[in-house]
Every structure is written in C-alpha cells, then in structure tokens.
C-alpha cells in the first residue's frame, strides 16, 4: 500500500510538475502563474512574513518554482528562506526566475534551494522560526503521509515557531456554495491536446494494469465537479466568507484554480464537464495529452485534525481563495 501511494504521487504529481516546469517558468512572467504565484506568494504567506520579527529563518517545504518569489519577499523583510522540493526541474525554474529578475537590475538575496523529499527532510531539527507548506499536503496520497509531512514541519520548528499550511478545499466558494463530489481526485491540467491525424494507426492494446492502477481509474475525474446545481451537493457547510472569493468567482461562473493560468484561461459555467467530453466514461484512462494531477481536497477542520498530536498548537484555520489555511505554533517539547 505504501508503494502504491508513492507510485501514485510519482505518476500524478512529480512527473506532471516535472513536465510542466518549463511552462511554469514562462507563465510566471505575466504574473499569471498558479494560485501560489499570482502576483507573488499568497496573502497568508505575506501576512506570516509580516508578522515575524525581522531576520527570521524560514523553510518552505515543497517550494516548487515559486521559491524565487518567496525569497524575494522574505529578503524584503530581512528573512532568509530555504526552499526544498523533490523536483529538480522546478528548482532550476526557480533559479532561472531569480536570474531573470536579477538581470533587470533588482538586487535580491538569492533563493537557497535543496532537492529533497519533504517527508525525509534534510534540514536540522528546531532550526527554523517558520515553516510554510503551500499547496503541497493535498498532493499526498494517504492520511499517514500527510501527517508525516506535518510531523516533519513540526520537527524543523524551534519552540514557538510558526507553521503555515494550505491545501485545496473540498468546500469551494461561490453562491450557492459548491463542493467537489469526492475528496480524492484526478484533476486535468489544461494541457493542449496533441493534434489527431486520421493516418494514426489504432493504438496498441494496453497491457493489463496492476491492481493499484485499476483502483486509481475509478477515482472520479473532475467532470461532475459542479455538483452544486445537479446533485444538490454543497451541503451548505462551507463556511467561506464570500468576500474572500470575490476576485475569483461570480454568480454563475467559477474559474478553476489554474496552474498555470495561461494554459487554462477559460471560464467555466456550472454543469460543464471540464474535460469537454474527452474523459469518456469514468473508468477510462485519460488521453496522453491531458495531464492529470492527484489531489486530496481537505474538508473544513481536516488540516487541524491531521496535525493532532504532533506538538503543534493550532491557532487558526480559515478559507482563502478556495484553500483551507492553517496557522499553528510549535509547542515546547515538555508539552507532550
């Protein structure tokens, strides 16, 4: 089972980001990167950097290609950020991003990057004043692994240090409130389909898939996401304040969290199948050109529940632009 989880993440998280790294690096230019990148790091991260006294050490677990943006913001406040990510392509993209902006005459402290598995983090215990983990924990395929990530984050923090974790929310903003119809999803990335030519020979019969893959293809694709009007989903337990989401949604439209925006610019209306019918029946594997990413979307309170018993004092959970954010403080060892 542990192998299956790691394999799922390898195929539907790491490989996808690796492939898309060059596109991400370019998309950042127009300020139209993914949610964590639009006009720089998200508000919750900016707030954390502002709350910290000057000159703090920050670790960003799963930093991705936005490490440069974070390090610029951190440097502006006198902090130092260390970014760790499993994907070398994303780290190189972050480095490229820093160099591109540096050449435009902006002197900023360079991001410090390390290629690492955030579940086996090569950073010293209790060395950091703050740890951020933005849009990472939702890519882990089991509760055990998600807890391991939070445990690593807690380990890195000095007593009193601050943790910020964000994850895609099961409950989505809008009026009426919507939610996904399931917590474990494969989300298509709007990669352009390769052109179909009639001269293509019929595809060879695929070899029988291993059990974990057969289980995987029964995960619902994002089609049917808009359960709000059809299924009467969105039980109304979404506590989101609609003012949080004004910039992202209007009455009858909902913009999917684009990653990056440039590859999925369309606004979708409720009821649309996001795959435009290409997904086929819910058991069929998606076509090669359409990259699927695995997400476990979090219910309200689930992040705090995940962090239970790890030496973290959960301060606040809130909904921000379709994500649950959790702010916590590392308790001194004597507390547990």
């Amino acid at each position, binding site marked *: 089972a542990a192998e299956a989880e790691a394999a799922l993440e390898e195929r539907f998280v790491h490989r996808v980001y690796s492939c898309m790294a060059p596109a991400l690096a370019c998309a950042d230019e127009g300020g139209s990167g993914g949610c964590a990148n639009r006009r720089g790091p998200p508000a919750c991260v900016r707030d954390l950097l502002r709350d910290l006294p000057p000159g703090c050490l920050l670790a960003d677990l799963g930093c991705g290609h936005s490490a440069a943006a974070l390090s610029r913001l951190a440097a502006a406040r006198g902090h130092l950020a260390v970014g760790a990510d499993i994907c*070398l392509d994303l780290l190189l993209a972050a480095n490229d991003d820093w160099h591109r902006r540096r050449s435009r005459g902006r002197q900023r402290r360079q991001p410090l990057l390390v290629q690492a598995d955030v579940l086996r983090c090569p950073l010293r215990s209790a060395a950091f004043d703050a740890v951020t983990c933005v849009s990472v924990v939702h890519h882990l395929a089991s509760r055990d692994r998600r807890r391991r990530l939070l445990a690593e984050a807690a380990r890195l923090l000095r007593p009193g240090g601050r943790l910020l974790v964000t994850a895609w929310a099961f409950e989505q903003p809008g009026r009426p409130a919507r939610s996904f119809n399931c917590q474990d999803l494969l989300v298509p990335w709007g990669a352009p389909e390769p052109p179909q030519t009639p001269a293509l020979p019929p595809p060879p019969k695929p070899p029988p898939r291993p059990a974990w893959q057969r289980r995987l293809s029964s995960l619902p694709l994002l089609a049917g996401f808009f359960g709000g009007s059809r299924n009467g989903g969105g039980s109304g337990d979404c506590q989101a304040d609609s003012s949080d989401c004004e910039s992202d949604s209007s009455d009858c439209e909902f913009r999917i969290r684009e990653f990056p925006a440039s590859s999925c610019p369309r606004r979708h209306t409720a009821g649309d199948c996001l795959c435009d019918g290409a997904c086929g029946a819910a058991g069929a594997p998606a076509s090669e050109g359409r990259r699927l990413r695995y997400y476990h979307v979090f219910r309200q309170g689930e992040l705090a529940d995940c962090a239970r018993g790890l030496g973290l004092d959960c301060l606040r959970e809130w909904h921000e632009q379709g994500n649950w954010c959790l702010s916590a403080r590392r308790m001194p060892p004597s507390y547990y």
Partner: protein
Amino acid sequence: IFKISNMKLILHNMLTSAMIKGVKKGYPLLLRATKVELQPVEFDAGFVVHMLPRLDWSGVTAAVQCLNQLDLLQDPLPELPPTVPDDYANNEDFLRKAHIALMQLDVIEGCLVCPETGREFPIAKGIPNMLINDNEAA
C-alpha cells in the same frame, strides 16, 4: 550562460543527513568541493547579526577549515574565531568575515558527505541533491 549556484555555507549550516537510517546526528556534512567561487553579495550587517544566533557556529568554522584545506581559492577564506565574539553585533570586522564565509562562498561543484555513513550527496547546477533511496530511510 552559467547560472550562479546557491550552495552557500549558510545553506550548508542547515543541512543534515539524519533522515538516513542509523544516523545519530548527521551534521555538519563534510564539504567535498571540487570547484568554488566567491560571489559578490552586498554586505548587510543587520542581516548577519540576525542570522548568527540561528546558526550552529561550530558548523560554520568546520566548513571554512574544510574549504581552506582544499585550497581551491586564490586567497583562503578569512579565518573565523572558534566562538562568536560577545560584541558581535557591533564588531563590523567580524561581521564582514562571517558574511564572506556565509553568503559569498559558492560551492559550484562537488558533494556533501554524511559524517557518519560516508554517503555522498552530489551538488548539480549548484543545487544539492539530498534524495535517498527507500532502503536508506529511517
């Protein structure tokens, strides 16, 4: 165009191999550098003052000694005292030496080595690769 690397001693100070099975401390990692460079980085006294209490100073001095022994630079890195002086916040001479070691020295090529198992972590394009295999994990 060669991109400046980021394997600085201030990063080295944060790194450990303790995620490897059987490793008790895993710190400081040995610096087996084959190519280093001194980069121009603006001196910011306030930043150094804030960072110093957050570092493991013995790890910094060990790294500087290690690199000076390798003799890869035209001029060796300035020698650092074994402990941070009490007046460090006002001691510009000391702060500047610390700045050179922590922020200006870049390890371009080489590897980091676990002090307990000898396991090597390569540095590629300035980024240290600290990934381990499943059978090495604690």
